[in-house]
């Protein structure tokens, strides 16, 4: 794997040691959270180039444009769509459908969160749902904790279901060529099952105790969800574009269209429809606002990370690690898949699942010759997706969405503490991974 352009010795170290050391240091700095993760990733990426592990040209080859394009495109679409108020409408409507019954609301918010997380990204979903949840629980004079806890789980489980639901799936899909439909048919059924199973302990722990006074329930029933729609024209345009994008994800693969192309087309089309009737100055303002909705920290974190992992990969270190993993599992594909699922789950509950999956992808790719080709790796990819997405539920730091919800809880004066959350969440997460391991075992082996 050592490229011709790569220096033989870097600061007195072999490229393997230098890149490996830089990679570990990057991980440590990301975990400690003393510095913004985008700064860390960009700095380490530049060091990979400056030190001679990669050239600028080869570094760019490591950046997965499909992942970056898909994330950016969807962020723009969601950013514009949310202005219509449709997400608030959905949340309020779902609460009223169950006649504002406290347990019914929890179940409905779980379904709405999971559904939106499958179609949008988790962070956006909880940013939209958590404030409504706090309003409803405040009105019903109920603790928001069970609701926010359930929504964290729903966002990570829902995100597992589709290619676009969670960044690990986007990366896996892009690296392997697995399509939107592949994810939908292989992961959505188990995600729905896990979601339903998760509701049982939630009911036993909290649900059966949730009660509210009739007059407070009546207050929630007085919310006029239709008034939440701020812009009907924008709503129609957004739903039109979202439908086109979803159809594109489902059908586009047969026409050679990558998810990033579809998402960016959707973003451009919605911008066009949104801005077209406006004057040029207003258009500039609207485009700037829409682009401002993109989480540039996440995007630059991804770019830096791709370069770092590509640098490590180019030294051959991940190939060595892949062989060691295979040795550890005795070359058994089933053991490898299940081990990867559990290791991914535990690792993702402790560290950000994005760098973890970015590292695992080339490592797993290196296992193809041992297991008989790329096709044979498919169950392992599902294991990685299930482990890394569901693992996000293991602790408060397991996923960005968890921290967003915790932030809302803190601001509402009902903080979610790290340890009490983990004591409840980690066993539940392990239960979901255990169910997933049975699913993978019986379906693919």
């Amino acid at each position, binding site marked *: 794997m050592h490229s011709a352009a790569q220096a033989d010795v870097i600061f007195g170290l072999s490229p393997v040691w230098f890149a490996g050391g830089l990679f570990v240091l990057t991980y440590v700095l990301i975990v400690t959270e003393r510095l913004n993760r985008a700064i860390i990733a960009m700095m380490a990426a530049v060091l990979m180039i400056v030190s001679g592990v990669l050239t600028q040209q080869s570094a760019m080859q490591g950046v997965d444009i499909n992942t970056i394009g898909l994330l950016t495109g969807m962020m723009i679409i969601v950013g514009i769509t949310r202005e219509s*108020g449709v997400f608030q409408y959905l949340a309020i409507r779902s609460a009223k459908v169950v006649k504002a019954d406290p347990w019914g609301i929890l179940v409905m918010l779980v379904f709405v969160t999971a559904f939106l997380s499958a179609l949008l990204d988790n962070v956006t979903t909880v940013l939209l749902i958590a*404030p409504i949840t706090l309003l409803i629980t*405040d009105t019903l004079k109920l603790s928001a904790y069970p609701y926010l806890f359930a929504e964290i789980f729903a966002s990570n489980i829902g995100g597992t279901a589709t290619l676009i639901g969670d960044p690990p799936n986007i990366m896996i899909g892009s690296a392997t060529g697995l399509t939107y439909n592949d994810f939908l048919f292989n992961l959505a059924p188990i995600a729905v099952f896990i979601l339903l199973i998760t509701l049982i302990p939630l009911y036993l722990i909290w649900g059966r105790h949730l009660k509210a006074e009739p007059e407070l329930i009546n207050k929630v029933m007085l919310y006029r969800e*239709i008034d*939440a729609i701020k812009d009907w024209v924008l709503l129609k345009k957004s739903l039109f574009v979202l439908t086109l994008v979803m159809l594109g994800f489902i059908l586009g693969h047969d026409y050679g269209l990558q998810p990033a192309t579809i998402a960016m087309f959707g973003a451009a089309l919605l911008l066009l429809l949104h801005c077209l009737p406006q004057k040029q100055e207003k258009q500039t303002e609207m485009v700037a606002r829409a682009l401002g909705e993109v989480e540039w920290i996440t995007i630059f974190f991804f770019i830096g990370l791709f370069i770092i992992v590509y640098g490590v990969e180019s030294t051959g270190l991940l190939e060595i690690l892949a062989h060691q993993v295979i040795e550890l599992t005795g070359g058994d594909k089933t053991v490898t898949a299940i081990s990867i699922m559990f290791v991914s789950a535990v690792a993702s509950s402790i560290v950000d699942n994005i760098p973890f999956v970015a590292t695992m992808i080339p490592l797993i790719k290196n296992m193809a010759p041992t297991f008989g080709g790329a096709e044979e790796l498919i169950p392992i990819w599902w294991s990685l997706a299930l482990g890394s997405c569901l693992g996000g539920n293991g602790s408060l730091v397991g996923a960005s969405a968890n921290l967003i919800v915790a932030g809302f809880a803190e*601001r*509402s004066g009902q903080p979610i503490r790290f340890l009490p959350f983990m004591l409840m969440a980690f066993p539940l997460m392990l239960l979901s991974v255990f169910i997933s391991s049975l699913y993978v075992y019986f379906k693919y082996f």
Partner: protein
Amino acid sequence: MKASEVMDPNPTTLKPTDTIECAAQYIMEKRYRNVPVVDDNFCYLGMFGVNCLLKQVIPKSVLMHKGLDNVSFIHESLEDLYQRFDEVKHQPISMCMNQELPPVSPNTPLTETLLQLYETRSSIAVVEKDTCKLLGMISYWDVGEKILNAGEHPNA
């Protein structure tokens, strides 16, 4: 000209232990927008005003960072709002006073003081930097009156 020359040196003050109910009645009666809160040593602690009151009756999920940006679906009565106020009215004003309105020092130039008045849209406390002692208050009316007087009596 400096801040100390346009301030009211004898402002009305509140104590941090005053209840929200008492403070609310006081500012409503006197039609004050903001009243400085000081401790027993006259050290400036923050401001209590109409915004603090509004904050108590609007749902928390609306006012919090990244909270609800659209509340058009909520239709509440005055009784609903009062209920929210009722829950906090016996609490001390220290729990809700605004500590983010920056005071100015007595030597702050007039233009800078006016800019702050314009940007914060609130009366400004004039505070001695080292001791945090409240020296006076500057309101729109004090400044406005002085500017107009300067036009009428140029040499005053």
